[in-house]
Each structure stands twice: as structure tokens, then as C-alpha cells.
């Protein structure tokens, strides 16, 4: 049966901002779905609040709404667009939840919108733990012993039945938010209370603990004729107890016999049928008792997921695309398998002839207050994948893809740490458990001792032990003694040049040189979904130390685009967006585009995007091998964030042509002293600053500059270890944290510009002319990391004359810096003077946002400029002026990290962003806040507590709030200032002033909104409990005064006056 003709318009729900548990994999799947449905003649309406996505590019859907993903907004859009169907399965948990809301409220029925892909019942069956459990029992499938609690009383009853340890999961939360394993009564109570709070249905599932069991996942696709296939099996190296998103995983499963595999396969199909997933992709998770083989179903997701993105990348089978087409009535046998050039149908099960390893990437260093142990609540912010012809090769390639300074299974146990520490690391895993396992073997632990402590399957333990043994033999030899045969032997097992060098106490170049002399190089093999049974010409490639190469090199002009590696705070989807745009642009220019990336969640690693995709670590060794093989015209480093930029020096040294802005310019921009000299020609001040090469230097510098100061190490991303400092004690404290200030590792100390307005400017320069992409005004004042600031386009409180002068000056900077391609500048304006904070001659985080604002992809234009076109040739002589307002708001992971202070500062902490669009700033800001998942209340009690320097703004702000109908609540000091200004205030105790105090009021739901600004460590510490309890009780708060004013503007516009327009109309 071909596609359905009764459906014309389909609404696709995106997943909104990047958060922990929901990252750019949904851009990958959503983009595929949009393209596939449009190719089949459907009109696609897309809603997603995340501007950094490829899917929200205006040419991907017919009508693109960058609006909050909630049922209220969707109802408005449904009224307007009158879709025939809604596809809820492409937008992660958000997409499902919102679609379920629409169904439950009768909105879909009212407007005759059919849910396709997964219906209401299926979503309910899968997501509601109680129903799910019942379904599994009906099928005769085993599930963990468990119970549901809707109160603490229920919870204690269940505890009596199943005992400790037990696993607690709140229903309907993202990435298992609020879940955890309780080993003792105190933890049990804590997790249950928190979970009851977080679950929108006030429901907890308390499970028998399967900690230590083996964990597997099956990726299933089903069509309406009940044809079912398994696309891929995935085995978790980390056994049960660690969220699968935080686990190191391997595809396919390694330790299953066919009998066990088939049992899981059959069970998976049964689960899909019973839950009621009629068409599309789902995953089913299993746990297996390693002693008896008892198989237990853990959960299923009736939608595409992070794992399905991984499975797609691991096999070359495009699950999301297929799922979208099945939802409109196709059957699997009617669809072609793209990767074999359509020689085979999609109704088969991919088989692979390599091993895939995924390693999650964490950012615990940004949240030092939180416990970095891994639990059933997901905490990782990104992941890498690597492909090899054996587990060790894929594992070690994945390790070096992580860009965390580890090039292999380096020893990380400290000299003075003993077996006790090791035991702890093995049994209560952190992000580096496998490294500690290697250390345990190094310390002579037996296989059984290691196994008992960590329960990682012995198959993997043997693999690790084998690596450790080989490392020992490397240590015992010398480089000259390693001949081609031995070199090959080690390289086949995935040892990086850097790791071999480290083991031999040499530098990496020495090892590489020797290896090249020996003529030992990898070959490139294809990912083809069929283990070479059918001929494929699709250029989805990986390197391996095997014998025969399959990557044919063309004679066309070729450009390599280096991707941005794993998502992490500070470097996320924005850079992948830019890389994809670059690939598309070069292809339009008829240049062969070669993409290199290691992040399976991305659109850039879709083999459709570029002419050739190398799924490889973005480190010198692997990139050089590709360059050696391909001999490209040049390499583009400016789109992938710091990841490719870090390789610039090495490219230069090795004669690799870097396209776009010359490396010397990059160096000027990144080197503080050179930049200072460079800037002296321009009409910019710099915040007075010093570069300290020792702690003593630093102290002296601070004396000269006087507080407040901003301190940061050189060459950093996302403001790592950057802090705003007000007092000596804060500064001393900081110095102890960043221990090694040196000549190579200098510390920048900068006078903090109080009360300045901060701007972001993105431009494209073709060497001659410069196009202003746009100027963004930060809503928060300087001092908060630009990635964590909300910003407005166009600026909402900077005058035109000032902007004109600024643009002129920036153009001159770009030209003088010989920029070819993109450049970003961050400027502060204080007392009508321009201060240059920094210049980055590369794509910035704001490029996708701005591109959406002006309706043109800046990254694409920049790519064409890099390829040799001038701006005039491209038709971009003049700046594109905005027709409405857009606000970008960051989204934070604070609710995933218990005990973390949700305060903003110079170190970036947000994981994603949303865009709000409107006729005025207030509407755009309000929508952005809503898109970020928060609601600005429009009446009630507002608690204000501000730092001294903000006091002067209070009367104005508060009188506006009172006019809007709010009651002001404040502590004594603030209250007096307000009363003096004639504003009525209710006084409340500070936390240390006795009870009832402000936190009591928050807990009692007597406060509806909070404006809390602070300075200095002490005041931050004092007010921590206010922010934290506000966060935990979903009370809207802002930690800046400018945020307060933005709220007022938004409220003045009023939600009822918001309008929704697709991008294509503006």
C-alpha cells in the first residue's frame, strides 16, 4: 500500500532546547522526518523553539514556527494551520508529552487532527509505568518487582515489600530526572520526596534493584502490516544502575548467544504490539541476570530516541526517515535502503562487520557542588561514537574522540590512593570507571576481584586487561624496536600515537614520524548496513588498521569540514549547525565536501549531508590520515568551535592549507598581548587588564585594578574557571582552585565593567568588504557569560548613532584582521564608550540564532566566501535589517544537579537555548521564557532582594510591578528603600533572621516570582537557599536587575496579545 492520500498537512513537534537527556539527536531525526515527508508531497508544519537546529531552517519545512513547544502554543498553531495529522514521535519526550496534552485536552479531536506514528493509547501505555507494567505481565514478560507510590506513605509500603537497594523513578520526567538508587533509608526518603515533587503526575515507580545486571537495548521498527525489524542491538558496558545515556555502550551486543538474542528480539516485537506502536521506531530496554539469564523488560520508548540516532549512525539505517514514512502509510518493503543505493529494501535487518562504541561526555567540572557519581538519572551532556574492526579499536578511538585530554586508558589513580579508593571507584561509578578498572589490573587485581566490584561483563574486562597488558609491553620496549608488524599490532587495537608516545615518554610527533617511516597507515572502510553483501557507493567511512581500502579518492576539488565533536557546555548544536551549512554551501559550489565528526547525535554525521563522511575522532592523528588519503584543496576550521581550531597550529606546521581567515589572525585574536597591540589602532578601549604568570603576579594585578575583577585562564571555552570576584577572600579562594598559573598557562585579570551593556556582533568578511550579520544586545549585564545571557535582536536599548559607529569600527577590525569568513566580537558599552571584550575569528554560538532572525544562513554565506566568492557576487552588499524582535534565552541543567546554585556568572552553564519572536521586545522575551519551559506569573507576590549597586533601579522596577498588579515582598533593608519611595511592601525575614523566613514562604507557595541579585561570595552563599528552593518549586526567578525589567516589558505586552507567525512569512 502506498502513502496515505487523505492527509495533506502534517504537524511535526520538535524537542525544544538542548537539555540533558534531549540533545541534537532530535534535530537529526526531525530534519530527516521533515525532508522525507516533504519529498513525498506533504505540507509540513514544524514547531520548535530551538533556533540552533537545522530543522528550523526555513527551507526544511513549509511553515516553521520557532515558538514555545507547549500545548497552548500548539493549539494556536493548529487553529491557524489546520493540519490533518500530528507526528509526535520525532521530538523526544517533549514531543510526546505535548502531543499527549493536546490529545487529553480534546484539542486534536476538536480540530480533527490525527495522531500518526504513535497514538494516545500507545504513548500512555509506554509512559505510564503502571500501565506498562500491566501490559508486560499480560504478555508474560518479566518486569522488576515494583510498586507505584503517589505519596510517601505508599513509598514506605513498597519499601517493605522490595527492600533496599531499590530504584526510584518519577513518572513523566525527562532523562529520568529526579530518579536514583537508594541504598539506605535516608536516601530512600530524599529521592522519593524529590521525585514526587518533580513528577507532573505525582507518581513514583519503585523497582527492585537490578544493579549489576547486564543491560541491553533493541532498536525496533514496525510498519502497519506488522512487519517488524530490529535495526540494531546495543549492549551497555556499564551494567544496570547507570542511566543508559550515561553508560558506555557497544553495538551490536557482544555477549549474547543467538538464543538469548532471539528471546529479546521476540520480546521486543511483542512489546511494540502490546503497547500499540502501529508504525515507527521504538526502543525496548532489557536487563539480564548475569548468573541465570533471567530476562526482564525495563522500559520502552514509543518514539525515536537518542539510541535510535546512535543505531542509525551505527548501522547506516535511517530510522527517523523510515519511521516518518511508515507513519504516512508506507510499509517497509515499499521503502528502499538508501545506503545500498536502493539495491535492497528497508525491510531487512542491518548487519554490521565492525564494532561501535559510544562514550558519554560529562561536564561535572562546571558543577563542583554536585555529586559526580553516575546513577539512573542522566547527567551527561553529549557523546562520541567510534567505529573499529574490533572492540578495542572502536573503544580507544572513542576515548580520543572525547577531547578530554585522555588519549587512551591512561592511569588516573593517584599514587597515594589505595585499593579502597579503587574499590569505591569500581562499585560506585563516576565517569571514568573503565579507567579505574584498567588501574585495578595494573595494580594486579584478578579478573574476579575486578568483576565482583564493578559487575562489568568479563568479556569487556578481558578486553581492558588485554589493553593494559599491551601497554606494559609497549613500556618495556623502545620506539626503534617497534617494527611495522608490532606497530600494526598495536594500531589494530586502537592505540593512539599519543598514547604510545606517553607510554614511551616521547612526544606524539616522534611516534607518528616513526609510524609513517614504517609505512603503517589505516585504511578506510564503508558503513553499508549489509556487511558487504551488497555493493554500496555511499561514502560513509571509518578508518581501521586493516588491509584493503574502500575510500576511492576523486579528482574533484575537495574541502574538508571539521566538525565540533561531542556536545558539551559551551560547544553544542550551534557549531554543528554551522558545519552542516558549510557542507551544503560547498556542495552548492560544486566542491566535494568531506565531513569529519565523532558525534552521533548530529545532523552533520548524516551521510546525506556531505559527499563523504568520515566518522572519526577530530584529533591530529586521525585527521591527518584522512588528509593524507584525500589530499584536499583545504581544510575549514572556523565552524566547529574550539575542536578544529585547536588543530590549527598543527595544520600549519604540516603544510595543510587552512581556508578562510589565516591562522596568524586566529592567533592574534586568541593571544591577549598580541590582541592588545592590534586593538590600539582602533577606537576601542579594553577593560583594563593584566596578564599574570604566577600567583604573586596575580595578587599584584588585582591590587592595581581594584575589585570587582573578572579572572580567567587563557584559551578557554565556555568560560571554564572564569569568575567574577569582589573580595580578597574570594580571590584567594580562586587561586587555590586554579593551581598552576604559569608562563604557558597565564591568568587574565580584567577590571569588571559594572553596569555596562554587552553586545555580540557577528560579521562576515570576504577580505575586502564586511557584512554585518547582526548586533545582539545581552539582556543581562556584563559579567555573565555570553552563552548564558539572554539577548535581543535588534538591541532594545542602544541608540542608532551608537550602533552605527560601532558597526563601522567592527568592519575595520575584521578587515585589518584579514578575516575571510565569520567573525564575532563581544563589546561592552559603558558611559558611551566602547570596550572590546573579545574577538573570535570563527563561527560563534549566536550564528544560527542570527541566521534565523535575518532569514539567511550566515554560515552558508561565510562558506561561500571561504570558497572564493565575494559578498557582492553573493548578493549580500547590505546588512539585512530585522522586521521584528527576537530574543534568545538560555536553558540550564540545574534541576539535574542537586545542591547546585542556579546563579549566573562568567562561567557558562547552559546546555541550550530557545528563541522567542514577536512584534516588540516584551513579546519576544516572554515567548523565549516560555520556550525555556518557564512561566512568568502575571500576578501574585514578588520577592525582591538586590545587591547595593542595583538599589537605585528598584523604585522604578517595583512601581511598574505594582502597576501590573503584583504585591512586593522584601527583607528589611530593601523594604525601607521602597517604602521611602512610596511603594507598599510586605516585610519578610532573611533566612538568618529567624522563622518564618523567605524560604518558608517559598515552600508555602506564598511567593510567585523572585528577583534576586547578588555580589560577592558571602551574599551569594546567604541567598543560595532562596534560589535553590525557588528552582525546586518551579517559582520563576531572575538573578539580574535587567532580567527584572525585561519581565516587566513582557507582562506589559500580555500573553493574550502574542501572535504566531511562521518564519517563511517574515
Amino acid at each position, binding site marked *: 500500500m502506498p502513502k496515505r492520500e487523505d492527509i495533506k498537512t502534517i504537524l511535526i513537534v520538535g524537542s525544544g532546547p538542548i537539555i540533558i537527556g534531549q540533545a541534537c539527536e532530535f534535530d537529526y531525526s526531525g530534519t530527516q522526518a521533515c525532508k522525507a515527508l516533504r519529498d513525498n508531497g506533504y505540507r509540513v508544519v514544524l514547531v520548535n523553539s530551538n533556533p540552533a537546529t537545522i530543522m528550523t531552517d526555513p527551507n526544511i519545512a513549509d511553515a516553521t514556527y520557532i515558538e514555545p513547544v507547549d500545548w497552548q502554543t500548539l493549539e494556536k498553531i493548529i487553529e491557524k494551520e489546520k493540519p490533518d495529522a500530528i507526528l509526535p514521535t520525532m521530538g523526544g519526550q517533549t514531543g510526546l508529552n505535548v502531543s499527549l496534552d493536546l490529545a487529553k485536552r480534546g484539542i486534536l479531536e476538536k480540530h480533527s487532527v490525527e495522531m500518526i506514528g504513535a497514538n494516545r493509547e500507545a504513548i500512555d501505555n509506554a509512559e505510564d509505568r503502571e500501565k506498562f507494567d500491566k501490559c508486560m505481565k499480560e504478555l508474560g514478560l518479566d518486569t522488576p518487582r515494583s510498586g507505584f507510590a503517589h505519596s510517601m506513605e505508599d513509598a514506605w509500603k513498597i519499601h517493605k515489600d522490595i527492600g533496599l537497594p531499590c530504584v526510584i523513578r518519577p513518572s513523566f520526567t525527562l532523562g529520568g530526572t529526579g530518579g536514583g538508587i537508594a541504598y539506605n533509608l535516608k536516601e530512600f526518603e530524599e529521592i522519593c520526596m524529590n521525585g514526587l515533587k518533580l513528577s507532573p503526575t505525582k507518581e513514583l515507580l519503585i523497582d527492585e534493584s537490578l544493579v549489576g545486571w547486564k543491560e541491553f537495548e533493541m532498536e525496533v521498527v514496525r510498519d502497519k502490516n506488522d512487519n517488524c525489524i530490529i535495526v540494531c542491538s546495543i549492549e551497555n558496558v556499564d551494567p544496570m544502575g547507570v542511566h543508559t545515556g550515561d553508560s558506555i555502550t557497544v553495538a551490536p551486543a557482544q555477549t549474547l*548467544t543467538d538464543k538469548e538474542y*532471539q528471546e529479546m*528480539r521476540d520480546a521486543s516485537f511483542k512489546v511494540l504490539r502490546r503497547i500499540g506502536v502501529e508504525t515507527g521506531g521504538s526502543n525496548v530496554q532489557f536487563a539480564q541476570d548475569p548468573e541465570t539469564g533471567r530476562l526482564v523488560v525495563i522500559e520502552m520508548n514509543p518514539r525515536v530516541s537518542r539510541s535510535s540516532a546512535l543505531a542509525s549512525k551505527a548501522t547506516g539505517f535511517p530510522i527517523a526517515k523510515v519511521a516518518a514514512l511508515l507513519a504516512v502509510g508506507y510499509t517497509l518493503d515499499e521503502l528502499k535502503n538508501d545506503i545500498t543505493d536502493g539495491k535492497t529494501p528497508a525491510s*531487512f535487518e542491518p548487519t554490521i562487520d565492525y564494532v561501535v562504541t559510544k562514550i558519554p561526555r560529562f561536564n561535572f567540572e562546571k558543577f563542583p557542588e554536585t555529586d559526580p557519581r553516575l546513577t539512573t538519572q542522566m547527567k551527561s551532556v553529549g557523546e562520541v561514537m567510534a567505529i573499529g574492526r574490533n572492540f578495542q579499536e572502536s573503544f580507544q578511538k572513542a576515548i580520543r574522540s572525547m577531547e578530554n585530554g585522555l588519549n587512551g586508558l591512561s592511569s588516573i589513580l593517584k599514587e597515594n590512593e589505595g585499593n579502597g579508593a579503587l574499590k569505591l571507584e569500581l562499585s560506585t561509578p563516576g565517569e571514568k570507571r573503565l579507567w579505574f578498572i584498567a588501574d585495578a589490573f595494573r595494580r594486579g587485581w584478578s579478573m574476579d576481584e575486578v568483576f565482583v566490584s564493578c559487575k562489568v561483563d568479563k*568479556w569487556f574486562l578481558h578486553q581492558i586487561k588485554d589493553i593494559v597488558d599491551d601497554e606494559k609491553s609497549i613500556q618495556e620496549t623502545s620506539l626503534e624496536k617497534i617494527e611495522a608488524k608490532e606497530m600494526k599490532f598495536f594500531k589494530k587495537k586502537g592505540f593512539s600515537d599519543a598514547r604510545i608516545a606517553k607510554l614511551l615518554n616521547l612526544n606524539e610527533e616522534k611516534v607518528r614520524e616513526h609510524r609513517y617511516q614504517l609505512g603503517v597507515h589505516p585504511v578506510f572502510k564503508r558503513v553499508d548496513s549489509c556487511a558487504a553483501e*551488497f555493493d554500496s557507493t555511499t561514502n560513509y567511512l571509518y578508518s581501521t588498521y586493516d588491509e584493503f581500502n574502500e575510500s576511492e579518492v576523486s579528482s574533484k576539488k575537495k574541502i574538508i569540514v571539521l566538525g565540533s565533536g561531542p556536545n558539551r557546555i559551551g560547544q553544542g548544536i550551534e557549531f554543528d549547525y554551522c558545519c552542516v551549512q558549510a557542507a551544503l554551501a560547498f556542495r552548492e559550489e560544486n566542491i566535494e565536501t568531506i565531513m569529519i565528526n565523532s558525534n552521533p547525535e548530529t545532523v552533520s554525521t548524516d551521510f546525506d549531508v556531505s559527499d563523504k563522511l568520515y566518522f572519526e575522532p577530530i584529533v591530529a592523528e586521525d585527521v591527518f590520515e584522512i588528509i593524507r588519503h584525500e589530499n584536499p584543496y583545504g581544510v575549514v576550521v572556523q565552524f566547529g568551535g574550539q575542536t578544529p581550531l585547536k588543530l590549527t597550529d598543527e595544520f600549519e606546521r604540516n603544510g595543510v592549507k587552512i581556508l578562510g581567515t589565516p591562522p596568524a589572525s586566529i592567533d592574534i585574536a586568541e593571544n591577549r598581548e598580541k590582541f592588545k597591540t592590534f586593538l590600539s589602532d582602533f577606537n576601542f578601549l579594553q577593560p583594563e587588564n593584566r596578564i599574570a604568570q604566577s600567583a604573586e603576579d596575580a595578587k599584584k594585578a588585582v591590587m592595581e585594578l581594584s575589585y570587582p575583577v573578572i579572572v580567567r585562564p587563557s584559551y578557554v571555552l565556555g568560560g571554564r574557571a572564569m569568575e567574577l570576584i569582589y573580595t580578597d577572600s574570594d580571590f584567594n579562594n580562586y587561586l587555590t582552585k586554579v593551581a598552576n598559573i604559569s608562563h604557558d598557562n597565564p591568568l587574565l585579570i580584567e577590571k569588571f565593567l559594572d553596569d555596562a551593556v554587552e553586545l555580540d556582533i557577528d560579521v562576515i568578511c570576504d577580505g575586502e568588504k564586511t557584512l554585518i550579520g547582526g548586533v545582539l544586545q545581552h539582556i543581562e549585564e556584563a559579567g555573565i557569560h555570553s552563552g548564558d545571557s539572554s539577548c535581543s535582536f535588534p538591541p532594545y536599548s542602544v541608540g542608532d548613532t551608537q550602533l552605527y559607529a560601532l558597526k563601522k569600527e567592527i568592519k575595520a577590525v575584521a578587515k585589518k584582521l584579514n578575516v575571510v569568513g565569520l567573525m564575532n566580537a563581544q563589546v561592552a558599552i559603558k558611559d558611551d564608550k566602547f570596550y572590546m571584550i573579545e574577538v573570535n575569528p570563527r563561527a560563534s554560538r549566536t550564528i544560527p540564532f542570527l541566521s534565523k532572525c535575518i532569514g539567511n544562513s550566515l554560515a552558508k554565506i561565510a562558506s561561500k566566501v571561504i570558497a572564493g566568492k565575494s559578498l557582492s557576487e553573493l548578493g549580500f552588499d547590505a546588512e539585512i535589517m530585522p522586521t521584528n524582535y527576537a530574543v534568545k534565552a538560555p536553558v540550564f541543567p540545574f534541576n539535574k544537579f542537586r545542591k547546585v546554585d542556579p546563579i549566573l556568572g562568567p562561567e557558562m552553564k547552559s546546555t541550550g537555548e530557545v528563541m522567542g519572536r514577536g512584534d516588540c521586545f516584551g513579546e519576544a522575551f516572554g515567548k523565549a521564557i516560555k520556550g525555556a519551559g518557564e512561566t512568568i506569573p502575571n500576578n501574585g507576590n514578588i520577592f525582591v532582594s538586590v545587591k547595593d549597586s542595583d538599589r537605585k533601579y528598584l523604585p522604578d522596577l517595583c512601581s511598574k510591578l505594582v502597576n501590573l498588579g503584583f504585591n512586593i515582598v522584601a527583607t528589611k533593608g530593601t523594604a525601607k528603600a521602597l517604602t521611602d519611595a512610596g511603594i507598599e511592601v510586605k516585610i519578610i525575614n532573611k533566612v538568618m533572621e529567624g522563622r518564618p523566613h523567605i524560604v518558608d514562604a517559598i515552600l508555602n507557595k506564598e511567593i510567585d516570582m523572585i528577583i534576586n541579585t547578588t555580589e560577592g561570595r558571602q551574599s551569594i552563599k546567604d541567598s543560595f537557599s532562596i534560589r535553590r528552593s525557588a528552582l525546586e518549586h518551579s517559582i520563576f526567578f531572575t538573578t539580574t536587575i535587567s532580567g527584572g525589567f525585561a519581565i516587566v516589558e513582557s507582562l506589559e505586552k500580555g500573553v493574550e496579545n502574542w501572535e504566531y507567525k511562521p518564519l517563511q512569512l517574515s
Partner: protein
Amino acid sequence: MKFAAKLLLENGISFEGIGFGFKKIGIGEVVFNTAITGYQEILTDPSYDGQIITFTYPHIGNTGINFEDNESKNIAARGLVVKNFCDFPSNYRSKMSLQDFLIEQKTICISDIDTRHLTKILRDEGCKIGAIYPSKLFTDEEAVSEIKKFGTMDGKNFTENVAVLKPYAYGAPKTPKKLRIVAVDFGIKENILRIMKSMGGDITVVPPSTSAKDIKALNPNGIFLSNGPGDPKVLTEAVNEVKEMMKLDIPIFGICLGHQIMSLAYNLEIEKMPFGHHGANHPVHDLKNNTVFITSQNHNFAVAQVEQRDDIVVTHKSLFDGSIQGIEHIEKPFYSIQCHPEASPGPKEFEILFEKFFEDMNA
């Protein structure tokens, strides 16, 4: 334990690798199997007699060998080719390592060669006769002469090597209702027997040369024709007997080689495929119900395309290459299938074909 080994193909292409298992020369037709799991079942599948199996999945041996999953008592394959040979198995049912099993079964294995490249050669040029040998014990010339001595697969009768010599009863089922089945063994996989027994089959397994008359004497409710190795065209005697069996008017069900023998009994043509089907991911189109089954496959011969006929109808086709996968008699309860509904290894969803056989026997 490990030794230097070589794989030499009849076209002169040779690979050097590491040997495992028993130190001997193994000669056979080199085929590749794309299944990820189930090496134990594949190795012990009698249909692989005369063949050397290349596993495209690069880790083989991970789950060791257990006592439950064998498809016959012995390894029928003449050798195996793997990318990485796993010496440290891990599975709760594992009783011995693959290495020990290979030694016990006197089978040689070569690892650490570019199996993907080998697969592409076999795919592009068709299956090749090849030899695996410890390079210190055999010279290349010896291997060449052994390959020559082996000749081709065509016209060889391998079923004699793997089938039973005397009839035996597989054991009475525990179900209340029992159906007498005669299973003609051309190299039967144990799982076929397990499944039929569990469904109530009281099975007598008989040698491939058993006559229709002798089978009739057993008074069966149905006849099963098993899978097995090699070229069906050499089994003329069996084909003639099947023609006779078809006169008995009781259900006949054939799998794989049994399917080919039934096809020959219908006077259909059999052709050798370039590299055959060996794997667990093959989509088969059920033409009657318009559904797709993912199946386990293992065959190098196939029934040539069928002209429209009055007596039989093609019921299943491969979605990979359109080759014929199933044939049914229009009037009589005779049906046969090319793929392996008994799975093991592979998807079990095609087990429903056994149900049909049992329904007809009950009728």
C-alpha cells in the same frame, strides 16, 4: 595454541593470518555468513558440509560453546574464517571455549585477515574453493593440489557424510495428541526436530535413501524433508522417491535442500547461485498475505524462476534478489520453503510454517 595460517583461494588469492583450532588443512567452498549471533549453531549446521565459513561479524567466540545450542553433534564445516578470534568467552551458559571446541572437532580456523575484503571477493566473483592450513605444516603447492583434488561443489553428494544411516525415533512428545512424522534426514538441524516434537510430532528420522514404500509402512501423518548440504541434483534417487511420496496424499513439508528436492520432483530447474544466501537478516515476501518475514538463510542453490503452472504456485520470494523462497502445491498439502523457519540461528517468526504442517496433518 595460535599458529601461523594461510587461506588460499582457487583463484590464487591468498591471505596470511593467525590459526586457531586444529592444525590441519581444511578444504571447501568458501562462503560468507552475515549473521551477528549464532556461530555455534552455524558451525554445527550439517548443511555446511563441504564449506568453509567466513563470518562477516568481526568478533567470533564471545559466548563460548554451551551444551544446548548445537544443531548436530559435530562441526560439519571444513573450516572457519574470522576477523577476531575470541579466546575469553563470557556467557552464563558457556561450558567451553570455541578454541577447545574446534580442537575437539578437529576443525581449523584462520583469524586476523581482512574478512570484509574476502567477502567482497566472494560477492563479486562468486564462491571459491579454498584451503585453510597451518603455513608451517603445509606448503602452498600442497594446498593448491588439495584444492584441485577437491574439485567443485557440483555433483558431490555431501548428505551421505551428515545424514543418519539407520532410522531412529526422536523421542515421544509430551503433548496429549501425537502426530507421526517421518523426517527424511539429508543433514537435519536439531532445532527442526525440537520444534516438531514440541508441537506434538512423534518423529522417526530416516536416512536419505529411504523409499516411499518404507515410509508408507510407518503410516505417518506427514513427511518432512530436511535441509542438508550440497547440490540437490545429485540426489536423483531421493527425488524419485519424493515423487512416489507425493502419491501418498499426506502432507509433505520440505525445508532448504528438502525444498529443492521437492522442486526437482515437480520437474523444476535448480541453479547454482553466485555466492548464495547465508545470514539471518534476509527479507522474504509472503506473496499470499503480502507480509515480510525476516529469515535465516543458508543455501548456494536455488530453484530457477518458475513459469505459470497449473499444479504449483510460488508462495515466497526473496526481497534481496527475487529468488524463489517457497512453493506450494495448489491442490495437495505439499509445501516447501528455501529459508530456515526453524531459525537457530536467526529470527523465529517463520515458525508459523510448522503450524500449517501440523494443521494439515490434523485435518
